[in-house]
């Protein structure tokens, strides 16, 4: 045990004396949380919609009043009047407008005569998000416009949907926090278990260990444990500071923190042992650096950290099932967003610990105790 702890001690002493390393492994995921959390979380506002009213009748005015109501309340879009359809479309093409709503001549007459009245929404479909948002606003607006004016009954006669939300509103930054925490653990695993491990090997430091009587398993477990401790610290720091930034309710509850620490440990062990298996036969210091980006993309995005996995194609779902990120992200989401009991994350913990044991066994089999 003393021999194994010597490796851990050495690694932690070096880590403590390397503020740059600490900064990189913890600050990068925090920055990502802040930037992505606020970049993806907000609703679209103040989109510019050009309105070409070629009708100017009563029905067209009624429609435009409804648009103005949206502008005054939800502020999803603001309208800009155009007299010439060609000028409006030119501005749309040149990016000065996000859409053009064209009310054709005789629109009011067609409405009254019920002879297929139409308005056209001309969109810049190179931006899917704006396109979907505007369609999402204009379709119900037209629906409301089409409803006959009636007096509401005291007791509704048609069935309605009552939505009950179990938890308070979850902004996107809170949704992303679980993923960012796992990313902090991954960055730490990549630096500690990948880059530093191979650099030490190339510098001949491992040669110094190999001539000592430490066993093969002692070496592997020592390297893994040292990496895991650093990754756990990175994960905890991210979970705590990230919770404060994302305004997670009651972030310092001891029970919640204890459960988060357990998931942190399981995720760290799984990611470090996986990284060690990947690097066990590698000698070239460029390899971990070159694979960092690929591994990050391959493991982070299919995990459901930024978008639900149920929206993925089959091949991505297959990756997601084998990806330890998935289970770490799921467990952290359960604890951070819902403060569930441990039983809700028992499956994730089982997978992560089994995955770590499997990776370590494979690494032990592949590890060469010679040069």
């Amino acid at each position, binding site marked *: 045990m*003393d*021999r194994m*702890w*010597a*490796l851990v*001690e*050495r690694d932690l*002493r*070096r880590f403590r*004396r*390397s503020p740059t390393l600490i900064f990189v492994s913890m600050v990068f995921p925090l920055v990502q949380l802040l930037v992505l959390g606020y970049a993806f979380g907000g609703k679209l506002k103040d989109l510019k919609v050009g309105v070409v009213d070629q009708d100017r009748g009563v029905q067209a005015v009624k429609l435009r009043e409804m648009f103005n109501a949206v502008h005054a309340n939800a502020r999803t879009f603001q309208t800009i009047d155009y007299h010439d359809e060609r000028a409006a479309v030119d501005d749309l093409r040149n990016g000065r407008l996000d859409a053009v709503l064209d009310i054709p001549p005789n629109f009011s007459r067609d409405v009254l005569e019920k002879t297929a009245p139409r308005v056209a929404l001309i969109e810049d479909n190179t931006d899917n998000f704006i396109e979907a948002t505007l369609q999402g606003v204009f379709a119900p607006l037209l629906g409301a416009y089409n409803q006959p004016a009636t007096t509401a009954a005291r007791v509704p006669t048609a069935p309605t949907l009552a939505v009950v939300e179990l938890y308070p509103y979850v902004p996107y930054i809170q949704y992303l926090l679980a993923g960012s925490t796992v990313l902090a653990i991954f960055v730490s695993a990549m630096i500690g278990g990948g880059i530093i491990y191979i650099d030490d090997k190339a*510098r*001949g*430091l491992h*040669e*110094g*260990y*190999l*001539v*000592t*009587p*430490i*066993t093969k398993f002692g070496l592997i477990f020592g390297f893994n444990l040292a990496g895991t401790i650093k990754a756990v610290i990175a994960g905890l720091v991210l979970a705590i500071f990230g919770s404060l930034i994302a305004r997670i309710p009651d972030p310092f509850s001891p029970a919640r923190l204890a459960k988060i620490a357990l998931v942190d440990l399981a995720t760290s062990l799984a990611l470090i042992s996986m990284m060690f298996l990947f690097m066990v036969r590698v*000698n070239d210091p460029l390899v971990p650096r070159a694979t960092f980006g690929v591994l990050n993309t391959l493991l982070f995005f299919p995990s459901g950290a930024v978008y639900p996995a149920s929206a993925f194609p089959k091949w991505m779902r297959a990756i997601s099932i084998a990806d330890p990120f998935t289970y770490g992200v799921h467990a952290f989401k359960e604890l951070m967003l819902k403060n569930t009991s441990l039983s809700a994350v028992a499956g994730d913990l089982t997978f992560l610990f089994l995955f770590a044991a499997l990776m370590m066994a494979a690494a032990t089999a592949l590890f060469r105790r*010679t*040069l």
Partner: protein
Amino acid sequence: MGAIEVEKITKRFDGFTAVDAVSFVVESGEVFGLLGPNGAGKSTLIRMLTTLIPPSAGNARVSGFDIVHSAQEVRRSIGVIPQAMTSDLDLSLAENLIIFAKLYGVPRETRARRVKELLEAVELEQWTDKPVKFLSGGMRRRLEIARGLIHEPQVFFLDEPTTGLDPVSRVSVWEMLMKLKKERNLTILLTTHYMDEADKLCDRIAIVDHGKLVALDSPLKLKASIPGANILEVSFSPVPEGWLDTLKSLPDVARVTAVDHVFRVSSNNGPRTTVALVEAARGAGISLVSLSVQSTTLDDVFMHYTGRQLRDELQESAVYDPSFMYKK
């Protein structure tokens, strides 16, 4: 029983034989040198003996333990200083030593005392708590020597201990090694391509070339084993026809070689041959351009046994050694 017994040990890398059936015995308390150019197979040999790479054939015993079947026992009994400096730069000297004391299983109660003693022995005690990155190359090498001795090994392996050091640091490392050897009755096996180092430190020297052991004896006996106790390097102007044969016929001359108008004359009696050579030149009406007389060196020994000069081989042979390439 010798401290190190090597029997027909061989290492092949993808069809290239780095060490070819080498055998020797190192007695307890002896300083044994493996002398040869880079790529000769010295590092591969030392790595096999320190259990870092398995041999392809043959066997060896270190401190009585088989290097393949009792590798852990071998590791417990040896101290190793690899060619590359492998101390952790961010840690202090004491921390580096303590960590290796733990790796070698030194009991907790003796660790601190041993660190103190060893740092005093290598004269680095005033740097105990400073990070290794502040040390010079020679000081770092002395720290590594202390590190290799932290568990009080019986046999000490050093792979090119002074490569890359300045002349002052080299002498300092030599003195340190001799002092420690005397105090601790160590058996030392070191590799080097510096002839002066081998001459100064080693009780016996094995000359290794292209993976084979070509000569083995004490420095004095190796020098005595080649013809000529002195080497005369001489050049003339002009050089008449058949002058080489004239030089060979001079008294006490054992051998003459010529490289670019410089004649290298091995003589069993330097002063007598010098006088005869000067008279022969005067008699032939030619002038002596330069003349130097030296005692036989290990370079002459190496040249005698391998047909080449050691310094000419240093760069050329480096590319053939896969274990050397691993370092890069």
